[in-house]
């Protein structure tokens, strides 16, 4: 029989609870340094009675099941008890304690000093449980990592046909959703990151996903985010929580509908000022406003307007108890959208075979005079978001409950692209989601996410000459189950039940389109 005391881990956890850094578990890098110590043999009932007054303290320690309390309790309690003992015949319990102390002393010279251990950067988070993206620790040294996401996806919209542009309508596919390779180099006052991606979402494509240089003012706590980081290049979009939660660690397969509508890509070009002061997290960014989507990376990267998007988030992260962490924030962005003008056209001639007889008859030809070009124009757009996250440790594993709400004006850039110049009205967008994830042992995870997005709060439809308001909200229920090899791989099944108003019933009333989808994804760390 033996007991395993995670000495360094418990020290790290004890320190972590005093800081504002939200970590659901100790950094995995320190776990292999746990000390293997034989447990003392059970003390006979007859020897328990005559022990010294210090004995209750020493007997209480092995009985404890909490590693974090056991180790501090052992050293001070046993030292005064051992010193005055002159007895030549060794007490069995005392001998056991001495043996354990010898083991500790033998182990300690080979261990790095405590601050040195803590300055080692933890590995990158591989699940959303592993910590808040707003409490990211910027490591030192060279780190090379990556991951592969391979999946099979199935959609009720799939057809073995081509659309009007000749593109396949089949969506039941085996694909490499993401294959990322990332290199980080961290210095005391600077850091740089390059990340590339390959996928076949829309044909095989490779592209840059992150290329960022940063100047840092690090916190005195090596496991805390920097006090100030100035970054420039292609990097995260500091808005809300879901957008900052990396694709690598997000357990749900993709971001929610509203997040993808507002931000069709995860990264954008610009400059950012981020940091953490105590519990508070802040970020200010100036961005191009052209997020880089996975499916069409070549389409991004050129801002059509000289005005930039200004973005800010103010939030807080706290760990009021060892087993509880909370975080949240408010985000805002204001930017400028672009309405493309049209080029000049030449005179042309059009024939429509109205009666289908294959001959040009009177009334079937139309002259189309040329038209002068029309100028492009810009429009204002903004979005506001509120996010909250609650992390907890439960007897069966870690839990994460989080949610976010958005409102925006003309900010849909990915789904129902807002163009108030074309429509003549400003579009009001509203979105929200609530998600819950639960570990069941470190090797399994279940979750449910509900999200809703309304791309136009003022949408109307016309039937029989009468205008009716119409709800365009798209609500998605996404249950998921997954198997996990901690920090190595996970295999996830997610079903998306999409309830919307994109179809039309026999009365002409908007109704739910049959467009559910599901996917099986295997993600393996590089």
């Amino acid at each position, binding site marked *: 029989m033996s007991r395993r005391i995670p000495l360094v881990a418990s020290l790290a956890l004890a320190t972590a609870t005093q800081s504002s850094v939200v970590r659901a578990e100790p950094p995995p890098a320190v776990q292999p340094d746990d000390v293997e110590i034989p447990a003392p043999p059970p003390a006979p009932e007859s020897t328990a009675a005559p022990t010294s007054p210090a004995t209750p303290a020493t007997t209480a320690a092995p009985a404890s099941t909490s590693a974090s309390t056991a180790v501090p309790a052992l050293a001070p309690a046993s030292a005064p008890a051992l010193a005055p003992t002159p007895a030549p015949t060794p007490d069995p319990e005392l001998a056991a304690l001495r043996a354990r102390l010898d083991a500790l002393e033998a182990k300690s010279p080979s261990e790095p000093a405590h601050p040195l251990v803590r300055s080692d950067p933890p590995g990158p988070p591989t699940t959303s449980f592993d910590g808040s993206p707003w409490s990211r620790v910027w490591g030192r040294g060279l780190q090379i990592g990556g991951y592969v996401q391979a999946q099979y996806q199935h959609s009720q919209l799939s057809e073995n046909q081509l*659309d009007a542009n000749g593109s396949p309508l089949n969506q039941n596919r085996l694909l490499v959703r993401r294959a990322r390779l990332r290199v980080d180099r961290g210095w005391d006052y600077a850091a740089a990151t390059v990340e590339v991606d390959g996928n076949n979402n829309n044909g095989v494509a490779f592209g840059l996903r992150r290329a960022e240089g940063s100047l840092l003012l690090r916190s005195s706590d090596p496991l805390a985010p920097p006090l100030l980081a100035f970054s420039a290049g292609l990097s995260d979009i500091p808005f809300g929580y879901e957008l900052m939660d990396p694709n690598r660690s997000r357990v749900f397969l993709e971001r929610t509908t509203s997040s993808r509508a507002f931000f069709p890509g995860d990264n954008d070009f610009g400059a950012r000022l981020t940091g953490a002061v105590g519990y508070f997290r802040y970020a200010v960014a100036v961005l191009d406003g052209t997020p880089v989507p996975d499916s069409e990376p070549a389409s991004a990267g050129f801002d059509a307007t000289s005005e930039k998007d200004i973005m800010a988030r103010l939030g807080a992260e706290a760990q009021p108890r060892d087993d509880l962490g909370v975080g949240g924030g408010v985000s805002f962005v204001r930017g400028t959208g672009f309405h493309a003008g049209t080029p000049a056209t030449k005179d042309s001639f059009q024939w429509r075979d109205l009666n*289908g007889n294959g001959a040009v008859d009177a009334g079937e030809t139309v002259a189309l005079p040329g038209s002068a070009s029309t100028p492009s124009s810009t429009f204002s757009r903004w979005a506001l978001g509120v996010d909250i996250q609650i992390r907890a440790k439960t007897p069966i594993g870690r839990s994460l409950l989080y949610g976010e709400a958005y409102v925006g004006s003309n900010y849909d850039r990915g789904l129902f692209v807002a163009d108030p110049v074309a429509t003549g009205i400003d579009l009001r967008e509203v979105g929200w989601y609530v998600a819950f994830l639960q570990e069941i042992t470190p090797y399994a995870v279940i979750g449910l996410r509900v999200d809703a997005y309304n791309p136009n709060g003022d949408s109307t439809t016309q039937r029989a000459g009468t205008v009716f308001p119409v709800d365009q909200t798209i609500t998605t229920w996404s249950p998921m189950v997954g198997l996990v090899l901690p920090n190595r791989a996970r295999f996830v099944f997610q079903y998306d*039940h999409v309830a919307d108003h994109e179809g039309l019933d026999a009365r002409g009333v908007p109704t739910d389109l049959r467009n559910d989808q599901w996917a099986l994804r295997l993600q393996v760390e590089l």
Partner: protein
Amino acid sequence: MSRLAASLASALAVASCGGEQVSRTAALEEPIRIASGQFIAGALPGLPSPSGSEDAGPGVTPLVSDVQVLTNTIAPGMAGLDFGGHASPNAQTVEVRFADLGTGYWVVPVGVPDPSANDALTWQFTADFGHDLAPGPHELLFAAVDANGASGTQLGVSFCVDTPVPDNFNACSPKIAPPAAVLSLTWNTAVDLDLIVRTPSGVTVGGKNVTTAAPGSSVKAASGGSNGVLDHDSNRNCAIDGIQREDIVWQTTPAAGAYGVWADLFGACGRPAVNFIATLWIAEPGPDGGRRLVEQPPLAVGELVASQANGGTAPGLYLGSFNFQ
């Protein structure tokens, strides 16, 4: 996995209070397609139109009161035929499908009232038709649905689907005599394939020469009678028209003798290969006493690959010959 997904979908549909679901499909297998409409599988709503409508009365509303379309003859693969008309004032949508073809119907919302038609509601749509429509008469049924989902009397409009082979509309109007013979070449990919025929007198039809008439013949003589005329040059210079067939039509009995036939791949248009069929159609007496075109056994069935494209520098692949007596 599919069963699990279906169970999950059912549970989630209940959880999300989901109602009726419809599919977004281009329905390209359907005989009629309406890009602006919603396709719903199943029978057309409403009451069948009573026969002998003289005594049938005005019909049960909501209904489609009239249909306006410029032709009642539909060519297979025809695109962009405009339909319009009126529906009763209590209608919300107009539904349409072929009575004897297809698997469902299309839903089109009605428009604004028409003051010139007693405030009947207007409707319109543009339809495409499948390439594999069965030739002959067909009825297109129209129905209307009100806000409660109720439907009234259907309205049927007769259409005739013409044959793909040029038959002078004989399939729809049997009183019109069909051509005496038609030689057809059809193929399955978007390439520039040419039908070449050499007559007993040594005249070659195809490419730039579109008639079997001897050089120097008058336009009138060259364009009909016993002279075969090429109807069109499909996918000419890879300007893809989607027709992918060429026909040489003899309105009266051709000159006797052996006719040689070639299929010439003028341009592959980026396609790796093409499969083709050459068929001869001969006018024969029908059971009703009239004449109609009857398809003969295929003259040739074959394949050409892109490397055989010659840009018109050679007659192409020899398919065989046939004789007129």
